[in-house]
């Protein structure tokens, strides 16, 4: 069966520091991969999605970037964190062959910026 791993679970970072969050999926090939952010009082917001290695689409302009160096690895990065980057970051995957498939989420990273 497929599993998704996301780490770290929690992170406290100072303003201006870099960020790297990692997500890996097991048990499937060529999945679609997604990064979401859930801010307090707001719904989940799609940040990036990827349909293949090196293919990244950005949904909102922001201080973050994403990369997919391997088929089942998705990384969320920032060179300099802002206070507004605080939130709950979730990675998700879906079957790649058909876009009309449910997305399945990792356990998330709770990011606090001080």
């Amino acid at each position: 069966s497929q599993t998704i791993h996301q780490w770290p679970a929690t992170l406290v970072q100072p303003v201006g520091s870099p960020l790297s969050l990692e997500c890996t999926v097991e048990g499937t090939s060529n999945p679609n991969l997604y990064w979401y952010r859930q801010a307090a009082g707001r719904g989940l917001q799609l940040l990036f999605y990827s349909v293949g290695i090196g293919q990244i689409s950005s949904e909102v302009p922001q201080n973050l970037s994403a990369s997919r160096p391997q088929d089942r690895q998705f990384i969320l990065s920032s060179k300099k964190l802002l206070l507004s980057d605080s939130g709950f970051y979730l990675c998700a995957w879906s079957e790649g062959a058909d876009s009309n498939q449910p997305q399945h989420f990792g356990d998330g990273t709770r990011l606090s910026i001080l």
Partner: protein
Amino acid sequence: EDKVVQSPLSLVVHEGDTVTLNCSYEVTNFRSLLWYKQEKKAPTFLFMLTSSGIEKKSGRLSSILDKKELFSILNITATQTGDSAVYLCAVLVGSNYKLTFGKGTLLTVNP
């Protein structure tokens, strides 16, 4: 802009009650509507609805979609304290793989 609105925002019930959660949407190029349950961490997938009028059922949970009136409901019968969670509704739109989420309904089931 695509929009998904859930109601109520929060709900407190007693064990054994039946609840109905609502989700309405305004989107272009609708493909399907999904329900998730979120406790402390990851949202877990409940249902995916693509066709109008066909009820999906899993134990005490059921859901149905009305594509003419642009809404869906999630029913939970004989609620238990373990049903306490945020229930998220999301709509999958077009071919760009984008899920647009509502803000969720916080359900609290008291013993």
